[in-house]
C-alpha cells in the first residue's frame, strides 16, 4: 500500500469538486497547504475529443453512458472524466427558482445567497445568451411552435466561448468552447498548486484517510495516464470533501459504513426523468449544426410538473429513444436531416423508494420507480411537445405514449385523447436522466439529513459534501450553477474553520 499525505483531499472534479478546488487553491500559495483532487476518470487531450458517438461515450461517461437503475427501466447519464459531468453537459446555466429553495427549507440557506454566489461562476465561465445567428432551426422551430400556442419559450444562457456549433456538447466539446470545470476551475486550481490525480478511484473513507486505487490506462483507451503509478493508496487528509456526484458520493459513504450514524444516507434521490421526443419536418432543417440546447419552456413546471428543452442527439441515442423497431422505427432515423427534437423532463420529488444503495461488491445501485405523478408529468410534457412540433409545421411526430407512436398532422387536434399515462410503460418507453440529485441531503440533523446547510457531514468533523447529492429535493432546473454555488459555500466554510480542522 502506497501512502500519501495532504491537508485537504477533494473526491471528484465536476461542478462541485472543481469549484471547491478553485476556491481553496489560494491557500496552497498563501499558506503552503497541500490539496489533492482525486478523479476516477481520465484527462483527455484536446485532440482526443473527436465527437464520435460511441468512442466518446466510452471515454467520458460512467459505463459508457449506459448506467442503469436497479430494475433497468431508466438510463442514468453522468460523466467520468477530468471535469466530471461538466465535460458532457450542454453548458445551460440557470439559477434555481426562489420557490424551490424556499421549499427545500434548509436552515440558513437562502435563494439570494445561491444567486449571489453563482454570479462569480457566471462571470468566470462566460455565461451569456448566444447571438441569433448561431441559433439553428431545431431551436427556432421550438420557439415558433411555442409562440403559435401562446407559450413563452426562454433562451438558455450558456457557458461557451468561441462556440463553432458542432452540436457535440454531450460528447465533450471538440473545440474546447464549453467552459466546464475542465476548462476553467481545475486549471486555475492547478496553477495555484492543487494536484489533480486522474484514474484514481476512492474505495473507502476510513477516519481521516481515504483508500484509493489508481488504474493503468488501457491499451485502447483515451486520456493521459495518471500522474501516480498504478496501485493502491492510503491518503491521509485533515479535511475530506466528497464531490463524486449523486450516485458515487452516497455509495462511497455507504461502502465506508457511514449508514450506521446517518440513516438518511442514499435517500432523497431525484433525477428529472426525461423523454427524447422526435418529429419529422417536410424539409431538411439545421439540427446537427449549432448549439443543441438553446431554448426551454418552464411555464408548466409548477402546474404540470414538466419542463421542455430543445435538444439534438446522436444516431444511436436517438434510435434508442424511439419506441418500437422495424421499418417504422427506421423511417424516423432515415429522416435525420429533417428531425426536430424536444426533451421532456419531469420535476420528480422525493419518494421513499428512490435511493442509492450498494451491491455486495460495493458498487452503487440506484433504485428508482416512476411515481404516478412522474408518469403523468411525462405524458403531459409529451403532449405539449407534440403540440409544439405540429404548430411548428412537423409532418409527423413520434410519441411513445400514444396508442400508436407515429402521429400525423391530422392527429394534432386530438392529442389529449391519443396519449395517456397508462401508455407510459416502464421497460418499453425509453427514459433517461442526467440531473442526478440527492442522497446526501442537507438538513437539520442526522435524523432528517446527511449534512448540515454548509455541507458538513453530521457527526464527522472534517468530512464535507459538495455536489448535487446535497440537494434535499429536486432543483427543477439544470443543476450545475446551484452545485457550484453550494460548493462555494462549502469551500468558504472550510477556509473559515481551517484552524479548528487541523
Amino acid at each position: 500500500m502506497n501512502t500519501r499525505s495532504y491537508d485537504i483531499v477533494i473526491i471528484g472534479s465536476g461542478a462541485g469538486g472543481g469549484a471547491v478546488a478553485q476556491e481553496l487553491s489560494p491557500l496552497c500559495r498563501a499558506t503552503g497547504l497541500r490539496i489533492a483532487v482525486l478523479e476516477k476518470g481520465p484527462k483527455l487531450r484536446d485532440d482526443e475529443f473527436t465527437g464520435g458517438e460511441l468512442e466518446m461515450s466510452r471515454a467520458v461517461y460512467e459505463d459508457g453512458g449506459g448506467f442503469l437503475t436497479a430494475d433497468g427501466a431508466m438510463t442514468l447519464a453522468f460523466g467520468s472524466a477530468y471535469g466530471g459531468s461538466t465535460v458532457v453537459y450542454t453548458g445551460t446555466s440557470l439559477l434555481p427558482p426562489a420557490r424551490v429553495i424556499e421549499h427545500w427549507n434548509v436552515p440558513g440557506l437562502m435563494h439570494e445567497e445561491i444567486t449571489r454566489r453563482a454570479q462569480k461562476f457566471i462571470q468566470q465561465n462566460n455565461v451569456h445568451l448566444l447571438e441569433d445567428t448561431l441559433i439553428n432551426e431545431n431551436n427556432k422551430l421550438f420557439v415558433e411552435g411555442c409562440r403559435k400556442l401562446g407559450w413563452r419559450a426562454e433562451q438558455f444562457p450558456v457557458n461557451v466561448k468561441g462556440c463553432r456549433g458542432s452540436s457535440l456538447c454531450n460528447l465533450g466539446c471538440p473545440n474546447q468552447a464549453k467552459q466546464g470545470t475542465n476548462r476553467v476551475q481545475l486549471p486555475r486550481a492547478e496553477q495555484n498548486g492543487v494536484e489533480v490525480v486522474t484514474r484514481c478511484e476512492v474505495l473507502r473513507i476510513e477516519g481521516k484517510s481515504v483508500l484509493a486505487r489508481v488504474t493503468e490506462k488501457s491499451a485502447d483507451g483515451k486520456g493521459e495516464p495518471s500522474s501516480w503509478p498504478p496501485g493502491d493508496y492510503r491518503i491521509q487528509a485533515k479535511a475530506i470533501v466528497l464531490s463524486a456526484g449523486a450516485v458515487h458520493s452516497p455509495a462511497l459513504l455507504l461502502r465506508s459504513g457511514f449508514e450506521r450514524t446517518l440513516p438518511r444516507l442514499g435517500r432523497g434521490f431525484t433525477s428529472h426523468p426525461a423523454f427524447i421526443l422526435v418529429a419529422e419536418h417536410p424539409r431538411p432543417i439545421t439540427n446537427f449544426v449549432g448549439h443543441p440546447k438553446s431554448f426551454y419552456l418552464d411555464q408548466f413546471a409548477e402546474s404540470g410538473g414538466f419542463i421542455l428543452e430543445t435538444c439534438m442527439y446522436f444516431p444511436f441515442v436517438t434510435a434508442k429513444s424511439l419506441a418500437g423497431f422495424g421499418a417504422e422505427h427506421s423511417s424516423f432515423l432515415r429522416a435525420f436531416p429533417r428531425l426536430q427534437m424536444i426533451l421532456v423532463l419531469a420535476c420528480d420529488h422525493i419518494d421513499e423508494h428512490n435511493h442509492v444503495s450498494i451491491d455486495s461488491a460495493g458498487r452503487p445501485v440506484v433504485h428508482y420507480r416512476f411515481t404516478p405523478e412522474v408518469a403523468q408529468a411525462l405524458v403531459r410534457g409529451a403532449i405539449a411537445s407534440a403540440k409544439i412540433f405540429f404548430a411548428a409545421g412537423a409532418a409527423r411526430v413520434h410519441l411513445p405514449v400514444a396508442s400508436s407512436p407515429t402521429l400525423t398532422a391530422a392527429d394534432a387536434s386530438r392529442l389529449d385523447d391519443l396519449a395517456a399515462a397508462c401508455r407510459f410503460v416502464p421497460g418499453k418507453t425509453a427514459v433517461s436522466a442526467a440531473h442526478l440529485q440527492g442522497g446526501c441531503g442537507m438538513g437539520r440533523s442526522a435524523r432528517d439529513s446527511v449534512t448540515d446547510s454548509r455541507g458538513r457531514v453530521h457527526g464527522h468533523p472534517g468530512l464535507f459534501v459538495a455536489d448535487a447529492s446535497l440537494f434535499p429535493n429536486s432543483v427543477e432546473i439544470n443543476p450545475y450553477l446551484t452545485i457550484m454555488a453550494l460548493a462555494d459555500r462549502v469551500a468558504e466554510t472550510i477556509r473559515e474553520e481551517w484552524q479548528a480542522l487541523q
Partner: protein
Amino acid sequence: MAAPSPSPDPIVPVVRAFVCTVVPEADALNEERWSELRRLIDLALRDRPAALRHRFRLAFFFLQWLPLFRYARPFTALAPARRARFLSFLENNSLQTVRIGFFGLRTLALLGYYGQPQAAAEIGYAATARGWDALR
C-alpha cells in the same frame, strides 16, 4: 498440422436474425460491417459486470428458444413477419422483466448498427467539429 478452428458461437445467428428484425436495413450489411457490429457490441459489454454479460447471453438463448412454444420453431427459423410479431409480444409483455430484457437486447442491436459511422452517414447525420463552418 493446422489447428482446429474454434466452433462457431451459437449465439451469432440469433444476434443476426434479431438485429435484422430490429433494423431491417441490417440485412444488407456486408461481412465487414457485421463484424464491426459484433465488435461494437462486445466492446459495450466488455467492461460491464460479468453477471450482466451472462444475462445478455441468457436473454439471447431465451429469444431463440421461446418461440418454440408459440410457433414450434426457434427464432432463427421464423419468417420475418413472425419474428417481428414475437418481438412485439416481448416488447409489450405484461411482465416488466421481459420488457426490460427485450429493451436491453434492442439497445445492443441499435448500438451495433447506428454506432457505426457508416450507418450515421447513411441516415444523413453529418455532425463535425467544424459546425457552422461545414455549411458555408
